[in-house]
């Protein structure tokens, strides 16, 4: 064997090969039919089998089998995965792709830490992603100057003067992604009572990124729930869902956050825990698996997290189940709807938001081409895989503009950040809204 053999198997001294914690049947579920390829955003963009679901499963399996070393090249293909799960929707064999790539990433992360590998990204991951996003308070504070700057128009000035460019590249991206921040309203009280006949008692999950940047969205969601006869409980001490950690391979912090949320919401007597951010929602629903993967064998954790996960509902899913009341006020707009990956692929929620929106008088909903293809936001992906995120963002925005709609509606704030930034870059005035913002308007009492 020549010394530079690039596929040289991992050195035998490595005790367990990567992928050893993944039940091997999960690899075997993939029959290599390739039906998933054209549903994968990164494959659509590159045409490279290595950037397709089938290819990535093949790569992970080859690494697990010791056929292939996890070189930077191989890792690059795996890292480029958005974890959008479009492939799971497409796969007829029921391959649980997320349950392959996620534990694989967790293992990779653990190995890196054990081997003391420092990556160029780590400061960013440590401080910005793990340090800031998880704690709503901290992000809120760190955004405060941004909010003032936006209100004073200073951000525009800074942009014009090129000051933004002095920020490190990753912070520049964050700056670009910041939504027009609304002045922060009053905190949501612990209890908001139902309007009219009381039909349910629900908890409202407000998370972290969403809480700081989209405070008004939670108010809108709470009001829509109230209008539909729900008591809304918003526990103060709830924490981040842990998705960013889990999806980038930091299993332990994810488990700690999951446990905290399960306890906090578990203390209330609730019919459901309502989420309005698809990314958080799919993570919360996945807590049972998190317990299984990160703390295998702990019966208590499994039960606590599993019980919580069973009660989580996306707000549109919940309202559709409950039977939404007819909203009285017209919202005359031409709109289109983007399917957030974490709603349509991870939670299989497609019809419910459309069904709710169809109740709104005056709202014309036109179809969006490739509505189920990821916009490139994918959690923290737009911060860590800039180039692909931009390509997918542009692709999405082209499709949106082609509909001729005035607003584009979506159920995930990650998508909103990304699409808003891309629309702005494209010079478009199309507004980005959450279904709850539309419904909030529609449930306002009709004007006489």
């Amino acid at each position, binding site marked *: 064997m020549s010394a530079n053999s690039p596929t*040289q198997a991992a050195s035998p001294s490595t005790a367990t090969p990567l992928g050893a914690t993944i039940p091997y049947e999960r690899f075997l579920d993939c029959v290599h*039919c390739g*039906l*998933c390829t054209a549903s994968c955003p990164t494959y659509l963009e590159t*045409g490279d089998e290595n950037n397709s679901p089938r*290819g990535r499963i093949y790569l992970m399996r080859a690494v697990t089998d010791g056929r*292939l070393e996890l070189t930077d090249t191989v890792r690059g293909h795996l890292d480029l995965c958005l974890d959008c799960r479009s492939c799971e929707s497409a796969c007829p064999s*029921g391959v649980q792709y997320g349950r392959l790539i996620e534990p694989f990433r967790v293992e990779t992360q653990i190995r890196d830490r054990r081997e003391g590998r420092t990556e160029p990204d780590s400061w960013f991951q440590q401080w910005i992603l793990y340090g800031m996003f998880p704690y709503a308070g901290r992000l809120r504070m760190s955004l405060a100057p941004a909010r003032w700057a936006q209100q004073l128009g200073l951000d525009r000035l800074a942009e014009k003067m090129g000051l933004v460019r002095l920020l490190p590249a990753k912070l520049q991206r964050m700056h670009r992604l910041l939504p027009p921040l609304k002045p922060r309203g009053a905190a949501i009280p612990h209890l908001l009572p139902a309007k009219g006949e009381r039909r349910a008692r629900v908890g409202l999950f407000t998370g972290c990124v969403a809480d700081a940047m989209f405070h008004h969205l939670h108010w809108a969601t709470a009001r829509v729930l109230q209008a539909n006869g729900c008591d809304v409980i918003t526990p103060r001490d709830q924490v981040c869902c842990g998705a960013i950690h889990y999806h980038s391979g930091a299993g332990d912090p994810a488990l700690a956050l999951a446990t905290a949320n399960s306890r906090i919401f578990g203390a209330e007597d609730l019919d459901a825990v309502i989420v309005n951010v698809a990314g958080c929602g799919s993570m919360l629903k996945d807590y049972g698996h998190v317990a299984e993967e990160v703390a295998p064998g702990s019966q208590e954790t499994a039960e606590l997290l599993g019980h919580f996960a069973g009660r989580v509902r996306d707000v549109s899913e919940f309202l559709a189940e409950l039977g939404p009341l007819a909203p009285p006020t017209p919202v005359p707009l031409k709109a289109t709807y983007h399917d957030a990956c974490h709603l349509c692929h991870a939670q299989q929620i497609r019809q419910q938001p459309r069904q709710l929106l169809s109740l709104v008088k005056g709202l014309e909903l036109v179809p969006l081409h490739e509505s189920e293809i990821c916009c490139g936001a994918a959690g923290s992906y737009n911060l860590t895989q800039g180039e692909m995120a931009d390509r997918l963002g542009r692709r999405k925005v082209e499709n949106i503009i082609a509909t001729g709609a005035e607003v584009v509606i979506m159920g995930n704030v990650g998508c909103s950040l990304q699409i808003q930034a891309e629309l702005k870059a494209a010079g478009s005035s199309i507004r980005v809204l959450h279904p709850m913002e539309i419904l909030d308007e529609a449930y306002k009492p009709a004007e006489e």
Partner: protein
Amino acid sequence: MGPSDGRPVTAHVRGPSLRDETETASVMMTAHEITRASASVPVGLLQELRGILSAAAVVDEPQRLVVYECDGFVVEKNMPDVVVFPESTEEVAAVVRACNRHNVPFLPRGAGTSLAGGCLPVGGGIMIALTRMKAIHEINLRDRYAVVDPGLVNVHLTQKLKGSGYHYAPDPSSQGACTLGGNFATNSGGPHTLKYGVTVNHVLGAEVVLANGDVVMLGGPTEDIPGYDLTGLFVGSEGTLGICTRLWVRLTRDPAAYRTMLAVFETVDDATVAISEIIGAGIVPAALEMMDQGIIEAVEAAFHFGFPLDAGAVLLMEVDGLELEVDAEATRMESICTACGAREVRRANSPEERLKLWKCRKQAFGAIGRLSPSYCTQDGVVPRTKLPQILQHIQDVSRRYDVRIVNVFHAGDGNIHPILLFDERDPDQVERVLAASDEILSRCIDLGGSVTGEHGIGVEKINFMSRLFSPDDLAVMGLIHDCYNPEGRLSPGKMLPVLAGCGNEHMPRRVPGRKAAL
């Protein structure tokens, strides 16, 4: 260096045997790692490829070639030496000419959904991936054709045509992923083939890069072009005559109305009699598909449609046409089914129900994972009237080899897809599955049918060619092959055995593999 069994893979391959060992890039591996049948490509060729294409469009790192070692057929594997991603006809032609100058084999690849190993780079060489050529150049509704690139995914054309009142008719079950170039090369069919025909009936013309790098235009957008029907010759040639770089495809008007029905039978026999009766009565259904009890069980578990689990077989039937006609035809089919002993015939009451029925059918094989850890889908054809015989034979085989076999297929065309269930970890079962498959396919030939309805010959069924065709037939095909591909550098080792009776014995079938199909 050869594959793990030490035998050089290139030995029996039609075409050049590789290659100037002195002038090579230094990429070598041991057998237990990533096996490569050919050790290298000439450095000069690599340089030329990098001159023709952008750096990112030439991939030669072995870690990135691994995923290209097989397609939907996973029994045999071999990595190409290089994968290139051309973006234009000129680039494809330039790559082909460079390969010829260096005497290195090359082959095209679409989405890699072939179930017959069509994309297996026998003898290594250059793989030309057409996935970046996926534009729709023109949609002409008045003249009812579209001009598209070969890498365009079949369903993307359908999506683009949505609302126009037209569609592209061939709808293989893999349409969500497979490319029109791949459909062209394998002459793909689908459930609606029965009424609308296969790919060759829908390709009006094609631009093709020949094995020597010349670019020719076959056929064209107008009907009835004089001269030889070369389009017809190239469609289904599995990439052995040329590389399709652009297609002119026919667009078909959407039917005004559908009726989709599900007939439930006590036995498979009753269902097959009903099929013959329906066709015999002069009805041309848009689709006529059969699923037996085993499949019903799996599909019901996966999709909860409400199929009766105690039924011996169900027929999924669709008629389309004018609103007035379809009801009359549907009623006739219903009474034929009832006369043949159907327990009940249901109609899909809404578009959603129809879509769900089709989803159950098209994704049926995926549900098989629920019945067994491994499975092998076969693809055979018999004359429709022989369906009861072949199904009887399949039951016999199943009993004799103690292998569970379930059936789902395009009944209207006599295209059967017996699915053999097994556990790949048990070598004895694997042996039995291989022998059982062989016996079923041989019987198809004896009954006047063929060993592939739609998945192609590829490398998988090359051994059957000499049983399907006389030496004279094969010689004629050989002449055509040699006329367009005289050096055999394009797609070597595919479709045609090198000499009559001498197949690809160098690649013994050890594992039937976990194949997906239908």
